[in-house]
């Protein structure tokens, strides 16, 4: 643990936390620049590895920031980086939630909530579409996703079992048909 490192982590990450609009993806480019070119915490290859882990592991994808902190200063670095990325914006949202509750019976609030619902539905649809566009495995990813959806919705399968099955299918198909 060292104070200069901790304060450097805070100075790099706290400003980034305020520009994470629409999920963590918006800050990745700058995070890479800071970690690789500016501060030389890791090589570009190491950064890509951490990125892949943060996508694949459970939890918010933004735990990438925590992994960078871990790389920089061990457990303390991971904790400092996590607090730096999540606490400032969560505090803002907490204040908004308080204000929201204060006015919960107001007419405008019902209209806001009702009016935002179709916007959110459109955003989720667009998100699904863009995930399909970049999904690895092409048509195979579509088939697995839609079959898993049907099994979840109508056959009441457990989602975790479906994910395990999807992983197994891809691993087997991948070894035979998609040579690395």
């Amino acid at each position, binding site marked *: 643990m060292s104070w200069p490192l901790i304060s450097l982590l805070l100075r790099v990450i706290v400003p980034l936390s305020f520009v994470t609009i629409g999920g963590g993806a918006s800050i990745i480019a700058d995070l890479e620049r800071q970690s690789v070119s500016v501060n030389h915490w890791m090589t570009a290859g190491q950064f890509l590895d951490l990125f892949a882990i943060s996508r694949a592991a459970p939890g918010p994808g933004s735990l990438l920031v925590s992994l960078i902190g871990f790389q920089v200063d061990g457990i303390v670095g991971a904790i400092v980086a996590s607090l730096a990325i999540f606490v400032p914006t969560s505090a803002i949202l907490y204040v908004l939630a308080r204000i929201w509750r204060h006015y919960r019976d107001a007419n405008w609030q019902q209209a806001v909530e009702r009016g935002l619902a179709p916007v959110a539905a459109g955003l989720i649809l667009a998100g699904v579409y863009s995930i399909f566009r970049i999904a690895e495995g092409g048509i195979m990813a579509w088939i697995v*996703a839609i079959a898993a959806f049907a099994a979840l919705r109508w056959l009441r399968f457990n989602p975790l079992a479906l994910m395990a099955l999807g992983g197994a299918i891809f691993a087997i198909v991948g070894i035979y048909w998609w040579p690395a």
Partner: protein
Amino acid sequence: MEVARPRVSLAQIFIVFTKVSLTSFGGGLSGWMYREFVEARGWFSDAEFLSSLAICQAMPGVNVVNLAVWLGFRLRGTLGAIVGFCAMIVPALIVIIPISIAYGYWGRYPAVHHALAGIAAAALALTLNMVSRVTVSAVRDAVTLAIVAIVFVGIGLLRWSMFELVVVVAPLSVAWAFYRQRAA
């Protein structure tokens, strides 16, 4: 539009948020939340969940962490927000560090890479489940249907900037909801 819900204990909030966080391989976190909070437990209505999601997406911050704070607050006030925040991050942080160490050993095998892509594909089922249900409940008339379509086409197909489109469309949508409310 809050539903009458049973009093939820802080321990329940912690357990369910942790469960969602730790099972969200390859994304789909909000789909999991929808399943656990709306479908399985009835803690929130469709409309309440969707509007919360929209607010949390519009605000700076990581969407799912925002959502944990927002929904936690709605369930149990300040303590609920803190518990939701911690449950979303701390267990996942404890899990991801050993994974990052293990990845150093196993990550070079292509089967690992393929399996992760397959898990992510199957995880999309949760998002599809959420989208199929919430779209139905959000569409109340031709105008709301048009709003869903404009946002989807603009951001999904035409790749317009999300922020600018939402800044224009959201107030119009709210104005329409307000007008309908007056007329009703």
